């Protein structure tokens, strides 16, 4: 039965024009879809094809394209296959629709993406900060946030240069590459 469902789904998805369909192996499917059609597709997957488990939502910051890519990984316990639905939305203003009413786990992922990327999901039950409650800087996972520069600006390093090391250096040994250079 699950095999039939798979075939049915493959045929269906191949037929829809706005959907790019790509089967990688028996248990992985990649689907590319326009952002306006995504909720409908997920509803179809969940309601008609038993993809009830939302494994994850991933956000990828394609800064050069000025886009966020959202990847919804949904899993079917019946067909035992995973569909990754890719969509792209413009980086600015960074607002998208929540799929909380379809998949409850989306609440966590959307909240996470919101605080890490600043991408707002309309209709998500809770867009408050969770991990970065005491963080005032920009959303850190954006590619334009340079973590290393932030660190160099805010922290300094332990200077560890004990006598034995100095002795070694006098003999011509010691650390050849300074820690700063490694970094």
């Amino acid at each position: 039965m699950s095999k039939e469902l798979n075939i049915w789904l493959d045929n269906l998805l191949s037929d829809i024009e706005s959907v790019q369909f790509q089967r990688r192996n028996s248990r992985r499917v990649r689907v590319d879809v326009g952002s306006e059609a995504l909720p409908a597709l997920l509803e179809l997957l969940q309601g008609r094809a038993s993809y009830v488990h939302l494994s994850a939502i991933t956000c990828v910051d394609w800064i050069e394209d000025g886009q966020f890519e959202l990847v919804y990984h949904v899993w079917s316990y019946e067909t035992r296959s995973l569909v990754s639905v890719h969509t792209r939305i413009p980086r600015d203003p960074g607002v998208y629709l929540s799929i909380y009413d379809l998949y409850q786990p989306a609440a966590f992922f959307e909240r996470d993406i919101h605080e890490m990327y600043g991408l707002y999901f309309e209709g998500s039950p809770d867009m408050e900060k969770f991990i970065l409650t005491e963080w005032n800087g920009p959303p850190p996972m954006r590619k334009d946030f340079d973590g290393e520069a932030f660190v160099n600006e805010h922290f300094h390093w332990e200077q560890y240069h004990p006598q034995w090391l100095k002795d070694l250096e006098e003999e011509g040994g010691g650390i050849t590459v300074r820690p700063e250079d490694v970094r």
Partner: protein
Amino acid sequence: MRPENYQAKNHPPSHEFELNFGPNHPGIEGNYAFKVKLNGDTVLSARADGGYLHRGFEKLMEGRLWIQNIALVPRICVPDPVPMEVCYSLAIEELGGLEVPERAQWIRVMQLEMSRLAAHLFAFGGHAATTGMYTTMFWGVADRDLILDRFEELTGGRVYSIYNIPGGVRREVPDGFLERMSSLLDYLESRLPDYDNLFFRNQVFIKRARDVGAMTQEQALKWGVTGPNLRATGLAFDVRRDDPYLVYDQLDFEIPTEPGGDALSRNLVRRSELKQSIRILRQVIERLPSIRGPIRCPIPNPLAWNVPAGESYTRVESSKGELAYYVVSTGGDKPYRVHVRGPSSMHAVQVLENLAVGSRLEDVAQIMFSLDACPPEVDR
């Protein structure tokens, strides 16, 4: 905290009060917190508060080489680090189209199951401690330590082994390791009845844990519950069997389930999984000597390795549930994006908040520990 936090104008005139579970609280696993509002001892609302262990892993990994990240990933889940390495390696292997030798796959399975044993012993020890039964915890942690000894022998590290690398494993299995492993398994098996008598069949514990944090199968599916917590609601689903990786499809094991969906069932599932893991390990010990061959496939110079562009989504079954990595490569020497889907990110936030409401103060810690949530997976 800010000065204004200490100078409010008025108290809420109310029948409820607040308690903080964590971050510094024995009723919480690791460095995590949630705030409960209570009336008497009934929880009116619960709110999770994470981020105490946030290190920005995903950001860090974007800044390091593919191979450097191998050292980083096990830190994402401290009690059960091996699945992290394996899952990340699998993702790179898929991107790079590497063919892992069979022997390496078997060694990986062995290591995964050892890690699962250790994690489960730790988990129900912790749960026992929340109900005041410290002896189970003392025994469990001490027995876990024997497994860590074998880890140390195999990989050189007690907790973080950094043993799995893309393409295989780092070292060959030492001489006599399998015999020592076998005798360890015998010992563990002989200990199981002790644990049963002390803990799993202890009437007081059963009375405490039954109907605590119970969820139905529908709820579990709706909330995205995975792993032993899902199996405790009666659904026999296991990534090892249903989305097999490595050589799990060649192994003979069962997927234990329990019907209750409560803290007791979750513990009993873990208890049964101990037995299944031992069973898998015995099969590995039996088969491993007969599988000859290299332990890793050749890989390019890891310091200048440009993994082909593409993306991959790999899943493994960790002791907590479904663990997944989504890795995007643009063909550079560093990953473009790595997303870690820890199973606890569901369990420790949404599920916990939902289950805690209406439960009793006595049971809040039990719910947290019976879900076996691992906060660093949430915070990353």
